[in-house]
């Protein structure tokens, strides 16, 4: 009997999202994926724009990770004939990546990544992305590296689109037809609720 990759992923999804990474255990709700975690906050200062609402961006990223479902069928819309399932949670790779950021910071004389000066953190992230051989911003988190996953999650969001165009386009919101003919108003804040 053969087992397709899709079936295998579905079976994998039945296993609790709990793995051993060295001495650390990761599952949904892991403290290091809380939006206020110092390492994540320090990472956001490096990879997200100063104009963005980093706190909101981190909260949205943490919520995304917490609500990720392994083995879910993905879109197979018009022109896409292969049915695929979502893979393992990207967060499975994060503990080791965060540990490596901390180790690199300690190697550079800081107590931790969060305690390192901004320039040093930037250099550490640049080296980590290079080591991970990541060339493109992911459309969604993939586990390639938490730094680029956080960037991909934010920069592909409706909030980042508004930031880029300096306008409240609200791409992913249901807005009604009234006023469609007018240019969007000025941007107000990141990550407002979807209507």
């Amino acid at each position: 009997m053969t087992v397709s990759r899709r079936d295998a992923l579905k079976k994998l999804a039945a296993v609790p999202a709990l793995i051993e990474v060295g001495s650390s255990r990761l599952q949904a709700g892991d403290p290091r994926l809380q939006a206020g975690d110092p390492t994540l906050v320090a990472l956001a200062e490096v990879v997200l724009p100063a104009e963005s609402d980093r706190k909101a961006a981190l909260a949205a990223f943490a919520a995304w990770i917490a609500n990720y479902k392994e083995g879910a069928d993905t879109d197979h819309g018009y022109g896409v004939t292969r049915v695929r399932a979502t893979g393992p949670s990207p967060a499975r790779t994060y503990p080791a990546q965060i540990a490596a950021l901390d180790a690199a910071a300690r190697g550079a004389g800081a107590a931790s990544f969060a305690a390192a000066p901004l320039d040093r953190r930037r250099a550490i992230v640049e080296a980590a992305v290079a080591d991970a051989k990541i060339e493109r911003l992911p459309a969604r988190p993939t586990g390639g590296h938490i730094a680029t996953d956080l960037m991909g999650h934010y920069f592909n969001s409706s909030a980042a689109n508004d930031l880029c165009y300096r306008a409240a386009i609200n791409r992913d919101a249901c807005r009604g037809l009234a006023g469609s003919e007018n240019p969007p108003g000025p941007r107000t804040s990141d990550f407002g609720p979807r209507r």
Partner: protein
Amino acid sequence: MIFESDVCIIGGGVSAAMLAEKLSELKPGLAVTIVEAGSRIFDVENRARYRERSLEYGENAWPGDFIDDQAGAGVISRTMAVGGSALHWGGVTNRFSEEDLTLKSRYGLAVDWPIAWADLERHYCEAERRLGVSGEPGPLPEDRRSEPYPMAPMPLSYNLRVLKEWADKSGIPFQGTPQAKNTRPYGGRAACMRCNTCEICPTGARYSPDFTYKDLLAAGKITLHDQTLVRRLVKSPNGRRIESAQAVSRARNGEAVEYRAKTFVLASGYAWSPHLLLLSEAANSSGLVGRYMNGHAFIGAQIELDAKLYPGMNEQHSLISRKYFRCAPGGPFVRHDLRVWESSAGRDPRLKDAAGTLLLGDALLADWRARTARGAARVRAYYDVHPSVESALTLDPARKNRWGDPLPSIRHVLDEATVARKPSTREHILAVFNQLAKANDGRVLNVNEGGYLDHPAGGCRMGTDPKTSVCDSYGRTHDHENLFVVGSPTLPTAGCTNGTLTFVAVTLRSAARIADP
């Protein structure tokens, strides 16, 4: 189990929905059974959540809308559910033009359809009423209509207004595309909320056939058997009639089900209708079942222009020009539609700049803003291509479903005339793109050509001669007096614009004959 009805419709997509609705009006009390291999996904209350999951995680916005082992090679949609591909269609409802029906007599190409334009136009109006189409009359006299659109057009977003001003400068007339989307409450469904995700419309403003099925079921006008795969049609001893359809219930572990009916209608789309006929060795005295598989080819481009745009306002809506639906007899043959969308494709945020430097935080944002300071439009032309008889759906003995039935394999082959004019067609379309670009100090950033035929159709083409066609203009097969094929498989050629409205119009035209065979 054995079920009997007056009309047994095999396939539960948009054509079947429209046909069943009209049959129930033409002949109240007619016993109509619809048999669909896929499941019914009627939980409209969950669509907002499905939309969220689709946006956030790329999850299937129509959970369960496919069958694992029911997939063919060259079939471009996996969707197999009550509602079919029209569950997640874009709702674009362009009409073909009179030229599509008269290619042979006007240009000496392909074949003429056995339908007069005025007849089809009447059924276009009916299809627009039933689907609920919003639109505006076109600027060209050739596109005159006998009835107004049922609803006012979708307002052009700010972006499309800017793009229309830009496009109009080129001298090519544009209008908003007509769409099966409500601009006011219509058909028991809400007005569009501009959610920008028409493939999963959370409000039901974009038509999908599940609404029709639910209404018909609630009124007791149809019987719907979903999760039931028809495997064979059984002919009468003399071969002139279809006596039954042999099926298996997927919901009941493959239990055998037999359908008996006075009339059978195949409404399973371009892939599964000819597939069932080939499996059944039915309707094929011409040898043309599964032949003349068609669709239209396409070329697209990204054009940068001197305008401030805000991508994300309503990416699903577009402009269309029908200017090139016509070409003068005697001149070079090239027919295509021309569409314009707001677009950010190719200008998305990027991790590395052109020199390969990693961009983080503010640097990435600055790079993104610099690359999007000017606006961009996506343009595309669907162009008219014609199939060869070798353009075929065949049974693939190497790939079978769990019941042991070979699955379909589609290989599109264009006729010699189409292949010969391809370079000049391409040259013409690129010249049109450049004309658009130059109209506002723009430039073509990139060009892409489709590797497949879109809006596929054919496989049971209609015609008057039983030697060169599978069915007549009403879809009645030449070989079996009580077997009809409706919708996309019957089209001899696929035009140069979206096909769904035409599939529905030809189906509605067949309804009276099916009601009173």
